[in-house]
Every structure is written in C-alpha cells, then in structure tokens.
C-alpha cells in the first residue's frame, strides 16, 4: 500500500479517495488459488475512453509525456468517465463535486523523476520508464481488465512456478464452492438506482416527449405546448441533479464529435427548441410564416422528430458501454423501444402496440431468465407487475375500446419506469476489482 500512500502525499488527495488502488485476488486465501495484487491507477491508455467520451472536453493528452490529464476547471462532474473507464481511474469527489484522476505525476516525469507511487514502492514492484512499445500480450494476464484500449502499462506476469505455493498440511479441509460464495463479499456495484433515479425519469421523459411530438406530427394528436415545455424543463432539471457543477452544464455540448453524451444533450436541445417552435406554429400563437416564410410547419415537425430519434439513439449509445449482467446488447429497457411503444399508444396504432408489446415481453423475459440462470437477485413481484402493466392495457384496449387511452398510457408508463429502473439495478461498470472477483468466482466453480 506504500504506492497508494506515496500518491496521496504527493498529490494531496483526500483519504480515502485514493487515485491508486491495490486490487487483490483471493483475499480469503483459497488454498487452490494464488493470491496476487494489481496496483493500479490511470493507465493513460492510447485509446483513452475517459477522454473520448467526456462531453466537456475535460481530458487532454500531454504532448510531451503522453499522459492523459484531467482538467478540473473544465469538468462538469457528470461522472460519465467513471462509467467508461474499466480501470476505475477517474474518481468522483463529493466535496469538490468534480472528478479527479492520476496524472502520472506529470510535473515529476517531465523533469525526469519517477512518479510518486513508483518511488514509494519499497520492493521495486512498481517502476516507471518511457517506452515506445508495450507488450500487449502481457495484458492477457488473468484478472487484468483487457478491453483493447491499449493501456500504457507493462505487466510482468508471475513466473509459472511461483504463482502459488504448494501447501503441505494433512489437516487441510476441502472447501465447498457453494459455501465459499457466501464467504466472499460481493463487490459493490458502481451504479446504484438510489443515485441514478433522476436519470431514469430523464430518459423516460425524453422518450415520452419524442413519442408525443411524433404522434402530434403524424397523427394530429393534440400536444400542449405548455405541457411539453414543462416536461422538458423538468427533464433538464432532473438531469442536472446528476451533475456536480451545474453552472458548467453548457460544457455538455462541447464534444459532439466524440461523445454520445454530448450528442444526446445537443440532440435533446435541438429537439426541444424545434419542438416548441413547431408547436407554436401549429397553434398559430406566432405567425412564423410571416417571420420566416420558408419554414413549413410540417417539414419542421419531421426535422424535430429526427432530432428526437437521434436523441433516443444517443441515450442508448451512452448506456451501451455499461456491463449488463444479462450480457444482452438488445434489451427491453432501451429508450428507443420505449419511445416507439409510447408513440404507438399516443397514436392509437394498435398493430404497432401489439408488436412492440410482444417484442418487449420477449426481451424482458429473456433478460430475467438470463439473470435467473446466473443466480442474480431479482424480484418476482416487481417482474410480474411489470409484465402485467405491459400486457393488461393492450388487452383492455382491444376488449374495451370505450375506455380512454390516457389512463392505459399511465399504466404503460409505470411499466416503463419499472423496466428502466431494473435496467440501472442490473447494470454495472467494469472495474479491476470486479474482474478479479469474477476470475476468483469462475475459477472456484471449476476447481
């Protein structure tokens, strides 16, 4: 742990928010498995996801050293980088309300001294040098997160004959894998529904707005401009809860080129603005034709919908980097599906309602089956409610056409909230600790 402390002292970080962490394998010392450690901070990857996905361009690469530097003054504190980095390098600081991260002691290495962590290591297990090439084969070391982003770290794997000691003890007891699972604490997920509930409501509000707007344009459903405006503002306020530095939220739009999060925000911004304009034109509140005679309200409406769809796709892309416990890329809680379902309901498009409901049912059941197979906790009551509020409105719609759609849509929306909430509950972020725990659990099962 000297490396961790060396870093803390050099960089003045607040204990226990350490930039460097020593991740261990087999803490409980299972006799058949090796105990080893990865001391990790930022690996300053060649394809650094933090930099690529940061909507605010808060990350840059230092030209001289190649180090990925996080700029505190540019950070919004949206914590998206803490989701996309598989090495758990960016850390959110609750006090400063922004992210911070190892900068490889850039001042020291620029002057030719080693980073504090390597200097502090009392056994020489950590070292630093500038190298042209990193042996990528070493990144295949079991337990090391390898997602092909070319981390600038050279691992020296354990010598085969010294991976673990042969243990001599005639009283040794056989360890039951079933029991072992209870002994080993499960790593806490980095994504908590408790923290992310505002995002559930934001993403669902956006799909609702897009669906509403679309049905307004295509099926002449009434869209109240005031309600549209209020819901959109509500969504923006909700998402701001998730941001550390609210006054810097404008920076969300800076990385349209690289970040789906920027695209989502820009897309939503344009959708919102055009949507309001379209609604006002439609309602003839302002005579836009006089002001901008070339604007055709219908064309504008379709452009608005395009931005809406673009926003929904962006949202799904933002979340596509999370680890899904069910391993499905396509799943029932995707917002484009919600958007389509709500659109069908708003437009009273029974065939579409039927198809999407069926599709969602299948996806949802597959998801739950996958979780069940992996013995991941799920809640049968919630699952039943979710399925019921998906299917019952459809049955009611067909059986009792006189019942108003709007009460059914509310039921459908409640179902979507459950689905999306479960999605957050079932999602996680790749971390070194998680990878080591997975390795441990998987090898225990096979030994």
């Amino acid at each position, binding site marked *: 742990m*000297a490396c961790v*402390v060396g870093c803390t002292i050099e960089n003045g970080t607040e204990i226990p928010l350490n930039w460097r962490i020593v991740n261990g394998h087999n803490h409980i010392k299972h006799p058949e498995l090796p105990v080893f450690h990865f001391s990790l901070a930022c690996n300053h990857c060649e394809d650094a996801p933090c930099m690529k996905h940061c909507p605010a361009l808060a990350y840059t690469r230092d030209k001289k050293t190649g180090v990925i530097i996080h700029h505190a003054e540019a950070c919004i504190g949206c914590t998206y980088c803490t989701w996309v980095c598989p090495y758990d390098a960016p850390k959110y600081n609750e006090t400063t309300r922004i992210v911070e991260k190892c900068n490889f002691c850039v001042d020291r290495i620029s002057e030719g001294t080693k980073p504090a962590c390597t200097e502090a290591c009392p056994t020489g297990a950590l070292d630093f040098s500038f190298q042209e090439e990193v042996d990528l084969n070493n990144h295949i070391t079991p337990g090391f997160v390898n997602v092909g982003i070319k981390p600038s770290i050279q691992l020296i794997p354990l010598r085969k004959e010294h991976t673990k000691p042969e243990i001599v003890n005639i009283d040794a007891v056989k360890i039951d894998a079933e029991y072992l699972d209870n002994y080993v604490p499960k790593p806490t997920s980095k994504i908590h529904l408790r923290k992310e509930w505002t995002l559930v409501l934001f993403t669902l509000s956006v799909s609702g707005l897009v669906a509403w707007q679309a049905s307004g344009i295509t099926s002449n459903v009434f869209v109240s401009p005031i309600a549209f405006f209020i819901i959109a503002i509500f969504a923006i306020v909700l998402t701001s809860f998730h941001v550390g530095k609210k006054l810097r939220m404008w920076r969300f739009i800076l990385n349209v080129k690289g970040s789906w999060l920027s695209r989502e925000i820009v897309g939503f911004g344009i959708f919102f603005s055009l949507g309001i304009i379209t609604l006002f034109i439609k309602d003839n509140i302002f005579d836009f034709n006089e002001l901008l005679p070339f604007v055709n309200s219908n064309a504008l409406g379709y452009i608005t919908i395009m931005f809406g769809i673009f926003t929904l796709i962006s949202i799904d892309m933002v979340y596509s980097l999370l680890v899904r416990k069910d391993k499905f890329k396509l799943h029932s809680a995707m917002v484009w599906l919600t958007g389509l379902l709500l659109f069908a309901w708003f437009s009273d498009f029974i065939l579409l309602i039927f198809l999407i409901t069926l599709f969602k049912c299948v996806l949802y059941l597959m998801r739950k089956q996958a979780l069940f197979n992996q013995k991941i906790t799920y809640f049968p009551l919630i699952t039943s409610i979710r399925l019921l509020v998906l299917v019952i409105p459809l049955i009611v719609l067909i059986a009792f056409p006189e019942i108003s759609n709007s009460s059914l849509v509310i039921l459908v929306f409640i179902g979507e909230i459950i689905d999306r909430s479960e999605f957050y509950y079932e999602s996680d972020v790749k971390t070194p600790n998680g990878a080591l725990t997975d390795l441990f659990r998987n090898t225990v099962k096979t030994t």
Partner: protein
Amino acid sequence: MKIISTVCPRNCYSTCSFKVVIENNLVKSIQPHSGNLATLEGPCIKGLAYIERANSKDRILHPQKRIAAGKYERISWEEAIETIASKLSYYKGDFGPHSVLFFASSGMSGLLNGVSTSFWKMFGGATTTYGNLCWPAGLEATRLTLGANNHNAPWDLENAKLIIVWGKNPAESNIQQMIPIEKAQQNGAKYIVIDPRRTSSSERANVLFQIKAGTDAALALGLAREIIKNNWIDTDFINKNVVGFESFKKHVASYTPEKVAEICRISTSSIIELARLIGTIKPMTLIPGYGMQRYENGGQTTRCLLALSVITGNIGKKGACWHYANLQSYVFDDLKEPENYYPGCEHPSFRRKISVAKLGEDMLKMVNPEIKMIWVERGNPLTQNPNTNKIRKAFRKADFRVVVDQFMTDTAYEADIILPAKNMFEQSDIIGSYWNPYVQLKQKALEPAGEVKPETEIYCLLAHKLGMNSDEIKKNIPEPNDAEVEKYLNKFLEPFPELTLEKLKEGPLLPNSFEEIPFSDTIFPTPSGKIELYSEEAKSRWGVNPLPDYVPLVQEKTYPLQLLSPNSKNRIHSQFGNLNIIKQFEPEAYLFIHPNDANDRGIINFELVKLFNNEGSAEVKVQFDLGLRLGNVVLTNGHWAVDGATPNLFTKGIETDMGHGTAFHNTWVQIKKI
C-alpha cells in the same frame, strides 16, 4: 526547503535510511536513500506515514494533567516538573527510590536513551525491568550455539540457492528482504516457507509447510534425522567446528518422519522431501523469524532449527547463513543482547527488576517497597506487554503515573501527568539495526513542535529541580541544545575513526568491524570456541536439555483456539495504527479465523463476536481466512483498545524457556456469538 538524511528509529528489522524534505519547519516528503544497500527502494507505508504522524492534530504538544478519568488539561512545564519532582522526592524519602518503576521499551532506539538510565542512577536507582518482549529466546539460542548473533549482509541472500523462511513474514515485517529473495528466485533458487499461516511471504514460495503452531522443533529434529541418515551432512565442517554432533545424532534418532508427521500434521513424504532439499542444495540461508520463538519452548525450538544450518555446513559462507539477528552495527554496546536483558548484569542501583513478560503480575507482587510511582517512556505496556488487565490493575494500584508519549495511547490514558515526547525528526541520535549492518544518524530535521521537549531535556530539568549535583548532571545529561547533544554522541564515536558525525550526516556508514560473511573464519566465541550443538551453558543457565530438544506445548483444554498475534505491515508494535493513512486500510482489529471454526459456532464472515479466556474478553469482528490451520485464530499485534481488541488482553505473561523472552503465542481462547 532542505533535504536531510535520516533513519527510521523503530524497533523493526529494516531500519530504513531515508531522506526527509523539510519546508517551513514541516515534513513535506520522504524519499529513498541510496546510501543503504539493504533499503535502496525506500521505506514502507509506515515510513511514508511519518508525514501525517509528524503533523498530526492528535499529537500531544503540551504537558497534560488528568482532571477526570480520560480527561486531561494542559499545564505548564513548570507545573509538570514541579509536581513530578515533589512526588519523586516524597516517594524516595518515604519508601525509597525503588518505589518508583522506570519502564522504558523499544519505542525509539538511540544512544541518548542512556541518559534516562543515567538519570535514574543519579536518583538513587529505581525498579526496572529485565527480559524483552521480542526476540531473546532466539538470541540466546544462537549465542549458546554460535557464540554471537551475526549474519551475512542482507544483500548476500541473493546468492543463496535454497532459502528457508521459517516463522517469519518478511513481506510485512521486513519488506525489503523480499528484494533479495526475488533476485535469488530469478537465479533459480528454491524458496520454502514454514509457517502455520499462509502469509504474503509464502505466496511466491515453492512450498509452504503449514505445520501445527509450536511444533517447529519436532520438524527440525525430524529433518536432521533424515539428513544424517542419508549422509547429506557436511562431515568436514562438523569435524572441524562442531561440538556434540554424535550425541545430537543419537538424540534425533527417535524423530522418524512418521512421528514428526503426526506431531507437525504434515505428510511424511513432504518431510523427507524437505530434508532432501536442505541436505542437497547449497548454499542455504535459513531465515528464522521471531514469531516461532515466542512460545514457551522458543529457545529450544530455535536451537533445533539452527542445528540444520550447522550439520549441513551452511554457516559463514556466501549465500549460506543462519539469518536470525545481525548485531554488527551495535558497536557501542559493552554488553550485547541478549545478555544485557538478564538480571544481574545491571548497575547495583537497578538491582530490583521485574520481568517484562510478567509485568502486571510482578508489579502487583512488589513489596518493601510497593510500586508507588510509575514512569513510562518509549512504551505502551498496556497493549504490548502480556495481560493488559493485570497491568491496568497494577497501574491503578500505584499512586502516581507519568507517561511520556506523542499520542494518547492506552497507557497514556492511565497517566496522572503526560509529557509530550519528541518525534524522530526533533533530536539527533545514533542508532544501529539488527538486520542491516549500518551505523546511522537519525538526524534532527525540525525544531520540536509545540512545547515538546526531548527526554534528555526533561531529565535535565528534573535533575536540577531535584537539586542533584550539577557536576554530576553535566557529566551525565547533555544540556538541552544541539551542540551538547552532538558532543554527547561524539563521545561514543571517538573510538571509531571511520564513524564521524559529519559523515553520518550524509548517510549510513559501515563500521570497520563489519563482516559481510560473519563466521567465515570459523571462529565461534562459545566456551569451547566451536559451534555448540551440545551446550553445558544451556543446561546450567536455563535448566533445559543441553541438546536442542522439542518440548511440546501444553494446550489449555477449556479454550480450544490458539491465538497467534503476529506483526502486520500496518503497525510497528503499537505505533502508527492511529494514523488515518493506516486506518484507511485497517480501520479496526479483526480476528482472522478459518470459516469451518466459525461455522461450528454459527458465526458468519465479518460478524462481531465475543473473544475471551480467563485473562480477558473483548468484542471483535471476525474475518474469514482459508490460509489458517483449523484451531488457530489470529489477531495482529499492536491494536489499541479503541480498535476493539488488543491481543494482550488474552496473553498470560509466560517467559520463554531461555533469554527471558515472552511467550505470547502460548495463548488459548474461545469465541462465541453475541
């Protein structure tokens, strides 16, 4: 900004040299020191924690007096000295100087500690302690056998082809030793660990012999039998240098692999294989730790192990040594450890001594005079000496207690007056090491914080207050200034032209007497001048078998779990554990236990349980550890009461068979659900 060369003065193998960066009279950073070949890569986590420790808000910076239980109030130095001096005069006058217990331990090493002894001598004496908490059984075993406690330079270890770490966990207690071990492994050396626990040090070993705790001697004797039987001994070396081989040979004959397997609980084939490794791979360095000699049979156990190095001729050669303790840097001592621990070697004014192992019991027993006043410096006996409850009782039985410390330790909370202690950066001193061979200067880098006064100054004030003869004071206690302190240290350096303060200020130095490979001249300072497998002195002084022998431990029937209290990397004895840097990794004490032992009692991982025996009880969280033998539980050494449980709540206070050491591991406990 200034960068100053210094050395960590803790009671630790490594004794790391390092450089400290000072800015505005504050410690800013700790850097490695290239002048020490044994600690080239710099200090461990505790060394780095000095930055917090030196600047900690919890540090005691002023004299304090107790106003209620656990409550203290700042007082002036005048009041503190006045109160202590008047108490000292009163107790000396009415009960004699031996009604005062002077207790000092290993909290900070250095030659200036001699000033304390001088003061109490001038006072007319005091009750003091004999023995040692740590390593004397092994030291005595080595001294009886080889005549002296020296071993090869730490870096020579990389020349070994077989390394046996026996009852030591260097990855935590001597972290830099892992560097030469790794180098030796790179060169193809075999690395064996013998320990009842699977430790971080055993992770990269070829084999871990996880023997039953306290049975090490039986294994060693069994191995010796196999080695002799197969004629893997170094006959030439034995003939020239060893006394008692023939009787030893007869003695080990009954330790068949089958018998040893039954005692140590490892397979016969593994014993035969280990004997083959020891008998056939040369050079071998055997690294016994201090853990395995902290049993009642610790001295004899160590002699049994050492016999393996002796009969295979692995002494005094490159890559071959008995790596127990290296006192080569203790050049200033007239009498070296362990002999200076023994009662009888002291100045007559200290003739009344009590055992460190039985501190509480002996204090309570003292009569004519009873212990009236206690002075504690460099120590925290409430957590570190056996039987916390008895010691607390003895402390409370006394009338008046003074504790000199940097932090509010469990012992400090017993004090009537607390005096702030200097830290390692606030006064220069010369220290040695028992692992690396350097003489080093712990160099003053800072002016003392707050109102802190070094002990030398405290004694100077007290001596004057007590009206001691000023010539005597001048002779024995340096005036409180840097020049006088350096003068005091220079007196020690005079006989060693190679060691000057000027050079020591740059970094560590090797004394001229340093030998990279001790005993290479095959001169052994024993009574016979040879290695004594058979030792008359062992029998006459300690009443044990003159031959190395296995004496089984007597297990307590009512308490089925044997408690081991090894050192961990997070603390050195009871120091450092209170700092946030350390607390983040180990916020409280955990009792490590095998899940099966816990399941039997319906206890789940991380559950809070009651840990108890006749000596004490505490509530502590368990943590499952599959690297333990069934029936062993582990609570690491040095926890304070606030951490939940200190192991010495449960230790009885038993001396080791030789050397007046402390048998901490002769401790049996029980746990139950709360």
